[in-house]
Structure formats: C-alpha cells, structure tokens
C-alpha cells in the first residue's frame, strides 16, 4: 500500500502541474488568437493598404511625340519604329552561345559584348537587356527566322525621332536627346521614363512640352522581385501635339543648297505681311538624325571641331556687322531728325573728321549725291555725313524700331540680340565716353553695331510694310483629339514711321538693284517678271594694312579666308507690292554685291515662283505687258 500511496502522491503533483502547464499553454494560444484579432481586424485597413502598395506598381507610358509639319502639312520630324534586339537572361539556355550566334547576324564587338554580359549579370534575370538597336528590316527578318536557335532573343519595337530631310532643316528643327540633369528640374514624371527623349535645340526644344504629350500610366501587378504578373489598368495618356510650322520645305532645301556653295553662310526668307519664316538656313549643317539615334563621341567631336561651326544656327544666333545694309537705319534716323531726302553731300572718296580720314569704298569718290543716290551707290561718305549730323543715339533709336539690339522673340530657343550701341551703352560696358569717330563707323554698319541675319530680314520686312513685323515659325498645334491651338497671324502695329520717309528707303533699295549703276544692278530678277529691291553690304573683318598695300595686297579676295569681308544682302520682292523678303550673310564671302546679292535674288525668285497668288499676278502682268508691248 505504501507503494500505492507513494504512487498516489506522485500522481497528485503530476495532475496539478499538468493542469497548470496545460492551462498556460491554452492561455498562450489564446494570446496568439488575440494577436491574430489585432492584426487582422484592428489593423486590417492599414495592412490591406500596404499589401495593395506591394502588389500594384504604376508604370509610366511614354506617349508618341508630336510630329512637326511644314506649311503644307508635309512631315519634317516624325517618329519611326526602332527595332531592337533584346536578350532575356532567364530565357536563354546559354547566353555566350546565343550571343555568339547573334553576332553572326548583328555586329557585336568585344566591348559591346562585355557591356551586354555585365548588364545581364547586374539585372534581374527577367529584365530584357538591349543588344543592338536601329535594326534594318532585313536584319529583323533574319533574327526572326533564326529564332528557334536563339533562345531568349526578342525583337522589341521602340520609337526614334527621324528627320526625313536631314541637314537642310537640322538647325531650325533641332534634335532630341536623352534627358539630362537640367531637364530633370522640370516637373514631369515622363522625364524619369528610361529612354525618354526631350527636345534639345531648335523647334524640338522650344515646343517640347506641347510635342511631348502627357504620360500614360499602366497599373501592373508585380511580385516581390518586380516581375510584372499582369496589367490591371491602363491610361494611354495624351499623345503629343503636331506642330504645324510656317516653313516651306522645298524652299528651305533650295535655300540650303544655294548657300551650300559657300563655306559658311546663312539666310532667312520671310513672308512679309505675316512674319512667317519660310526658310531659315545655315551652312554647313549637320544630320540631326544622328542625334536621335545617339551620336557617337567621335562624330560629336568632329562637329565641335569643325572650323565652320556646323552646330550653330547662324541665321538666328550669328552676329555680324551689318555693313551697308545698316544705311537704311541711318537714313531713317536722319529723316526723323529733320534731314530731307534731297539733302546733298559731295563725296571725294573720303571724309575728314579732325585729323582722321574716313574712306569711302569707292577710292575716287561718288561726287554729289542725294539720299537715293547714296543708297544706289552705297556711298559711305554720304552716311558718314548723316551719322555725324544726327548722332549715335538717334541711329540707335531707329535701329531699335527696325528690330535690332534685342532678340526679336522668334520661337526658337536661342536667338542672339546683337548690339546697337548708344553713348550710355558704351559708358556702361566700356566705361569710356563715346567718340564722334565711332558714330561715323557705326553710320556704315561697322564698329560696335552687330545684328543677326534674322534681324536684317525683319528690318527689311519692316521697311517694306512700315509695320512691326515679328518673325514666327510655329503656326498651329494640332491635338489628336480635342482642341488644337492656332497662333493667329498678328496684325502688326504700325511702326509710326511716315510713309513718305519709308518710300525714300524703298526708292533707294529699288535703285540699288534696278537702276543702272546700282551696287546690285547685276542681280536683277531674270526668270520672274517682277522687281526686287535690296541693299548690299560688305562688312570689314580686317583692314588691309599699309604694309600689305605696299606688298601688293589690294584686293580683299587676296587675303586668307578668315580675314576676308563678310558679304551681306537684304532684299524684298516684288518691289512694288512687297510679299517676301530675304537676308543673307556669307561669312568671309567678299563683296555683298558679288556674293550675297545673287543668292537673295535666286531665293526670292524661287519664293515668288512658289506663291500661287503671285504666280497668277505674274502671268497677268506678262500678258498685259505683251498687249501693251
């Protein structure tokens, strides 16, 4: 029985403690149940949100970039399919072998191969890595045919910007490039999309926001490693607007081809009443397609090192002494200050101011001239006299009226303003007082006076119309759906210059071309039955020194190219009822009458021939002439 008692004692302790243990176990499980309640019921909402955030990832979709069209709707900047070969590591059985096989179809050099392998290694196995892009149709076909032997190789279609016309329009259109830090400051989520391109120069940059469109979004379900499982929702975004421009592609090409004969030149053709830029060319040019495809370091350096600066848009960014094309400004300043057009000056070939002698371009002088005569012969002495009489500040006042001294506000991202000096300007920038001699130099568009070819074209348009013509390129932004935005042609304000005074300038410019002995009398229209009015300009880059004169260098053309004069010409047509105007600057082209005037003549002729209204007028005028003659 002792045994039994003892057994009983052990059992009692055991039972008590087992109940205790069992009780605490159940309590602990109840604690877990409480925790479960807290997580799943009390904090449910918070965790449900977190789970959703885990699961759903928002991807941005880049909308197609808007096209750029010329004035007739012809596309000048478009999007093209960019066929790329991608390699997905996890689908490739043997990456090295696949690459080896692929390299028989697409050229892959050793460094490229290393980049691809590094990329494949550093990225998750399901992320496609680009092997090559911009493949031709034929290459795509060959890859597709060999697909069974190329596991993991996919063809992917992206978009690249293409400029069907290339160099002639490269400056005005600009190009697109990868987003850099500067662009990133603007607050658009699209900029963070890998491979997204933004406008870098030209119209592409100026109208970038409109052309870009609005980002679409794709809500996708992703797993823990970021692989997309399925798409939950999609908002295609808004494609970029098409930009309709004022440019005439054919004319632009003609202008480009015409000035390409020179080493470095630029030209602008404007529609006079509207300020529409029909052509804006600068040579040498470059192929902006190269930028859209990603330009190589070597080609970039070549472009940068080229002495003729192909990347610069000289028409809007180049500043030059306007030379004699500035004489209209001086004459207008003179007339505004009481000098009448019949004011006469005798030109002996030079003008003496104190001890200094200022030469006329004509060594033996022009004799007695009135204002129109001064234009016709481009007599420097005549304008020295006018400049001295009215002073620099009056000249500056007239120059500003004609659109010089500040950027005109054309819709291009970088436009130079040039310089129109005044007494205050010199004091401010040089800290020196103005000298009267400088007024004389400025009176023939030399010295401090600097203008862009675009400003010269605008000046010409303003002389032709008497209105404050402002140039523009963008005419309309066309949305795929919804409202398009048209930039209505402005009714330009009257410049407040009296017609009879403007008529003096017009008569002078008419005489330059159409009066025998005018400086551009060899550049009259030949194919078109109308007249051109214009003004030559030859701006000195470097004087011929007395030393050189002694050594026999008397002609500017004997100097090295860099030291030759710039040749300029501005003109409008028809002279009686101006419709178009043009300005050309040929860098180091020598005499404006010899080099620049024929260019403007040819371009304005081409422009007139393309104008349907003028075409009819011309036919009509020819008929009437025949009848009368």
């Amino acid at each position: 029985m002792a045994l039994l008692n003892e057994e009983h004692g052990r059992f009692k302790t055991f039972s008590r403690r087992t109940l205790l243990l069992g009780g605490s176990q159940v309590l602990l499980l109840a604690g877990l149940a409480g925790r479960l309640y807290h997580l799943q019921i009390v904090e449910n909402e918070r965790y449900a949100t977190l789970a959703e955030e885990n699961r759903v990832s928002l991807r941005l979709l880049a909308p197609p970039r808007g096209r750029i069209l010329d004035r007739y709707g012809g596309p000048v900047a478009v999007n093209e399919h960019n066929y790329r070969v991608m390699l997905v590591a996890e689908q490739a059985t043997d990456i090295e072998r696949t690459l080896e096989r692929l390299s028989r179809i697409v050229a892959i050099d050793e460094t490229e191969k290393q980049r691809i392998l590094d990329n494949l290694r550093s990225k998750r196995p399901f992320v496609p890595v680009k092997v090559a892009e911009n493949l031709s149709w034929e290459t795509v076909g060959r890859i597709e045919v060999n697909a069974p032997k190329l596991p993991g190789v996919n063809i992917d279609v992206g978009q690249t910007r293409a400029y069907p016309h290339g160099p002639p329009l490269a400056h005005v259109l600009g190009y697109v490039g990868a987003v850099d830090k500067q662009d990133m400051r603007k607050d658009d989520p699209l900029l963070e999309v890998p491979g997204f391109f933004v406008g870098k120069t030209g119209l592409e940059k100026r109208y970038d926001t409109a052309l870009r469109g609005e980002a679409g979004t794709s809500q996708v379900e992703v797993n823990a490693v970021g692989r997309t499982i399925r798409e939950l929702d999609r908002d295609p975004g808004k494609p970029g607007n098409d930009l309709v421009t004022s440019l005439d592609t054919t004319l632009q090409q003609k202008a480009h081809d015409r000035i390409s004969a020179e080493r470095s030149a630029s030209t602008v053709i404007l529609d006079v009443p509207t300020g529409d830029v029909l052509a804006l060319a600068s040579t040498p040019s470059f192929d902006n397609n190269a930028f859209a495809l990603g330009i190589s370091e070597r080609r970039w350096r070549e472009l940068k090192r080229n002495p003729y600066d192909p990347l610069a848009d000289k028409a809007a960014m180049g500043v030059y002494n306007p030379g004699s094309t500035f004489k209209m400004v001086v004459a207008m300043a003179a007339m505004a200050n009481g000098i009448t057009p019949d004011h006469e000056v005798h030109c002996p070939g030079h003008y003496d101011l104190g001890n200094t002698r200022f030469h006329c371009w004509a060594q033996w002088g022009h004799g007695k001239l009135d204002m129109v005569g001064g234009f016709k012969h481009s007599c420097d002495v005549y304008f020295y006299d006018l400049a001295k009489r009215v002073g620099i500040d009056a000249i500056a006042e007239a120059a500003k009226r004609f659109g010089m001294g500040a950027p005109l506000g054309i819709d291009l991202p970088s436009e130079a303003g040039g310089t129109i000096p005044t007494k205050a300007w010199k004091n401010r920038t040089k800290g020196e007082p103005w000298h009267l001699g400088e007024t004389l130099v400025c009176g023939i568009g030399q010295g401090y006076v600097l203008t862009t070819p675009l400003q010269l074209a605008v000046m010409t348009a303003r002389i032709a119309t008497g209105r404050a013509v402002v140039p523009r390129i963008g005419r309309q932004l066309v949305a795929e759906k919804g409202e398009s935005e048209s930039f209505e042609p402005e009714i330009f304000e009257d410049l407040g210059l009296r017609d009879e005074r403007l008529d003096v300038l017009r008569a002078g410019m008419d005489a330059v071309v159409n009066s025998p002995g005018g400086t551009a009398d060899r550049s009259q229209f030949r194919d078109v039955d109308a007249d051109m009015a214009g003004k030559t300009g030859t701006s000195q880059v470097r004087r011929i020194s007395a030393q050189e004169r002694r050594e026999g260098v008397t002609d500017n053309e004997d100097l090295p190219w860099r030291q030759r004069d710039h040749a300029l010409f501005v003109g409008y047509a028809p002279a009686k009822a101006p419709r178009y105007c043009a300005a050309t600057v040929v860098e180091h082209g020598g005499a404006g009458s010899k080099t620049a005037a024929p260019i403007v003549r040819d371009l304005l002729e081409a422009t007139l021939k393309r104008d349907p209204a003028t075409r009819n007028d011309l036919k009509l005028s020819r008929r009437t002439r025949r009848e009368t003659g």
Partner: protein
Amino acid sequence: MRFDPLHQNPEYTFAQKLTHVPWGLVLVVCGLAAIGCTMLYSAASGAWDPWAQDQAVRFGAGFLGLLAVALIDVRVWFRWAWVVYALAVGMLVATQVAGVMGQGAQRWIDLGVIQLQPSELMKVALVLALARYFHGLSDEEVGRPLRLIAPLVATAVPVGLVIQQPDLGTGLILLMLAGAVFFAAGVSLWMFGAVLGAGLAAIPIAWQFLHQYQKERVLTFLNPQNDPLGEGYHILQSKIALGAGGMFGKGFLEGTQSHLNFLPEKQTDFIFTMLAEEFGMVGGLALLGLYALVLVYGLAIAMRAHNHFGRLLALGLTANVFLYVFLNIAMVMGVIPVVGVPLPLISYGGTAMLAVLGTLGLVMSVHVHRDVRIPRRGLNDDA
C-alpha cells in the same frame, strides 16, 4: 484479458489495441494534414506539384508509422528509452563530424535515402529519457538536488551539441521541453527559480557567444523596421499578409502577398500566414482551435495514464507539439524572433512530418497502453 488494477498488467490483443487508439485525435491529425496539403496546393499557385503531392505521400507513409508506434507496447519504449536517447545523441555527434552544411549550420545528416535533422529526433528522445528517469524517482527523491544531476546532464549534453551546430532555437526548445518534464515530475519550484535566475544572469555572457546572425535576428526582432529588406522584411511582409487577410480572408488561391512572393518560405515556416491571408481570422482561429484540441487530447491522455512514464511521456510530447505550434505562429506574427520552427502537419518538410507523427504516435501509444503498470524500480524482464 486478465485485468488486475493493482498488480496485474493487461495483455492486449491487436484488435483490443485498435479499439484503444484515440480515433478522435487521429481524426484531428488527419484533418490538420488535409489542411496542410490544401495550403501547399495553394502555395504552388493551385498545383499538386511540387509540394502538396509530396506531402500527401509522406503523410500517408508517416501515418502508418504513427499507427505502428501507437500499437507498440509502451513498455517497449520504456525499455528502449535510453537506447533511443543514446542513438539520438550519437546522431547529433555524427552531424557535427560528417554533417552536410545546410543553411549556414550543420543540422542535417545524410542517410543516403533521406536527409534527417537529428535535432528533431532529439526532442522526442530527450523526453523519452527524462520520462524514463523520473519514472524511477519517488516523490521524496525528486526533492533531492543530487537526484537531479543525472537528468540535468542528460539535458545539457544534447542542448550543448545543438547550440554548437549552431542552432540556438532548438537548444532553447530542448531546454523548455526538459523544463516541462522536470516541472511535471514534481521538481520543486525554487529550483526552477534558481535556474531561471542563473539563466537571466548569464544572458549578457551568452550574448558574447552568439553568432552574428543570431544577434541580428534578436535585434531585428526588437526593431523590425530597422532593416526592411533583411530579416525584418520577412516579418513585415508576413504581418502585412496577415493584416490584409481581415476577417474572412482574400479567398483560396487569392492571397496576393503569398502568390506574388512577398511572403518568404510560404510553403514551410510562413504557411500559417498564407492560410490566414487566404482564409482570414476565421481560418486562423479554426486552425488554432484544432491545435488546442490536439493539446487537450494529449494532456487528457497524460492524466489518464496509469504509469508515471506514460504520463510524463505524454505530457512532454504534448509540450513538444505545443512548442512547435506556438513558436511558429508567434514567429510569423512577429511576437518572437525568427526561429526556424515548422508548423506541425502543415509545413512542407519530411523530418518535421516524421517527428510530429512519431511524437503523436508515442502519445497514442501511452493512451492505448494507459492501463499498463510499470513498477517504479523498472520492469523485470521476466514479468
């Protein structure tokens, strides 16, 4: 059948034994295994391959083993207790010597056909050995500290070996199991107090001996937001999955956290999370209820046994099941640090399945042979 409640031991026929099997418990076990297979089917995004199918086959085989263990006379387990213990310790040593490196620690032994985790076996063996030892101590003897030296050594040896692996979690589980048996055997409370006090005092010293990853686990547990992509990330994702489940869950196969792989180890350690994400609090509580039922069964069996060995064995093994369940669920809910403890009968894994079924088989054996008497001094081989 001869039956004498005092001195005679019953001898059962096979059929009698079968009727004594606690079929209710068997049913609960089968239910749990079925839930396990369902969850593994879901873990594979609605496929029997690779886990559910495997697990079903393993459970089938293990289930037969469970019945076999349940039908083997408890006296056989009594007789072989120390041998099993020695075998388990031997395997632990063998793991150290020739173990396969697995998950940064030597925990697996390769038996050619299968890989075993001897530490799982050790849990059962330790309970067997301690139950065997305390069976031989009278009420009075249990109170003598000297009598506790042998079981303390028997506990310390495997704990030391397991911590060496290093597997701190299992070492602590072995300690807790031993503690449960010591406690139920009647070891006085002041001794527990003394050991606990000593243990707490030793924590700063023990900290020095912890491996870096173990320290990190503890630190991450204390502040999970600390490293959202490391250890804490798993717990955070687990909590998100649980919390997002809500009352009724997202539905079978609809758990986004699990199916999009935000949840780590969803087929093994984090399977409870997936269940609670897909079936909500209702599902989670139901599972907890089933486990509670297993515990109640186990403790009832312990209380009903007529031999002390059986009682201690059933109690210790029930504690083993409890520790599996509690530690796993507490871990996935972020209540305790990350420990690699599977959820019994649900998590995918061979050794765990075998160990749990073996454990429950032994508990059932105690029940089948509840009326067997075993003298305190042991069995005479002629009896």
